[in-house]
């Protein structure tokens, strides 16, 4: 095949950028290769794991199964765009650290993008709903509970609500003597 290239202009983390891409490139290829945004991970590359997830026009999408040429005119956010101007971590990133929601970190950027995307809506979700909202991301290390806890914590914080009692504290309080 004769090589086919195209100029693609899009807004990445708030800055308008243009580059020449091979039309066969995925958005992952473009973000990592052209812009050095290596938070976007190359995991399964078939839409199953969410390690490559980025926010496109307000929606979280797997960039591994999205053509780079489709990014024309779009607004794209990666984890690099979440950092505060002084380089410090966002509340959500800090919660992931505090709750040990990170081990190897390969899945982390994807989870953060997804959570940013739905927390933005300012709703309170049940644990079951949160699990469904995070279901498009695989983590081989943490066992998910700490991730859920970190997201839930920020959800309450951002909505100005007190943290609900953790299940463990509830059990400790109400469990019969023999279970303590």
């Amino acid at each position, binding site marked *: 095949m004769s090589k086919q290239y195209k100029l693609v202009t899009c807004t990445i983390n708030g800055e308008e950028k243009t580059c020449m891409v091979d*039309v*066969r490139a995925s958005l992952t290829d473009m973000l990592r290769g052209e812009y050095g945004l290596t938070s976007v991970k190359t995991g399964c590359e078939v839409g199953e794991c*969410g390690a490559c997830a980025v926010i496109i026009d307000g929606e979280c999408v797997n960039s591994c199964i*999205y*053509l780079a040429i489709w990014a024309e005119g779009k607004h794209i956010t990666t984890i690099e765009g979440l950092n505060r101007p002084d380089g410090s971590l966002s509340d959500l990133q800090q919660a992931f650290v505090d709750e040990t929601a990170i081990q190897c970190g390969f899945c982390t950027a994807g989870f953060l993008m997804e959570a940013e995307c*739905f927390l933005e809506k300012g709703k309170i979700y049940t644990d079951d709903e949160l699990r469904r909202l995070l*279901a498009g*991301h695989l983590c081989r290390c943490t066992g998910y509970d700490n991730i859920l806890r970190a997201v839930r914590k920020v959800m309450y914080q951002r909505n100005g609500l007190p943290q609900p009692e953790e299940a463990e504290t509830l059990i400790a309080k109400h469990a019969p003597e023999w279970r303590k």
Partner: protein
Amino acid sequence: MFDTGMIYEAKSVPEAVQMRLAHPDAVILAGGTDVLIQIRSGKLAGRELISIHGIDALRGVRQEEDGTIVIGSLTTFAHISSSPIIQEHLRVLGEAVSLVGGPQIRAAGTIGGNTCNGVTSADSASTLLAHDAVCELTGPQGARQVPIEQFYLGPGRTDVRPGEIQTAIRIPAASWKGCQGHYIKYGMRGAMEIATIGCSVNVKLTEDRMHLDGVRIAFGVAGPVPMRAHRTEEVMRGAALTAETVRRIGSGVLEEVHPRDSWRAPKDMRLHLCRQMAEDAFVEAVKRSGGEIRE
């Protein structure tokens, strides 16, 4: 990098039709959640693509004056579920497509792709079938309309003819007015899972809410393509809302479905699911219609 041949990008329907005629062997690419996977796996490697992703005119849900609900073929699952028109009139479809994959897949996958792929497990298919949806296909001669049941030709084969693309899914007013439905997806996990069986049932009750004015029952994975249980529907018309009616629906559909063994589930299990899910979806649809099942 995807292993593809040339990629043609259509910005309008006429442009897509021209490209289809000029490159008859090229694969249509919408949201890419099937096609790009198959390019990665090798099944479609090296093929030329016609990307219709940029035809924004094919996105969105609208309603025509006569009540027909029109879903542009490029509308994503996420946008179908969040559409006020769907939430008000066709809640069951919004719920069905919210069970597809995970959030990122629902933000990318389109209803056009979910029907044109000809896949029996497609989560939108049974509900569309159960509402006598009509596919709008646009080609060099203009648009034609095909009832969705006839649109499926065989596993992986649909009635998209040379030069055509699917431009909309239409659900006529008579197909949804006064109807309430329910979709059940049975999978091994709660998300990121292909249906072992999918079942969509909707009912229309008589004015006194004591009898069935009509019932429509559709399945995914109960045959090579999504299918309806027409005979059972016919027999049950006018039936009273009783436990006996529920049982007859369950045994009726068993005469019509023909699922097969696969690594996901044996045939016997699928048969059991067809019966149970038809009954459960029916009971829920009756409840949603304000009816009550009596002994």
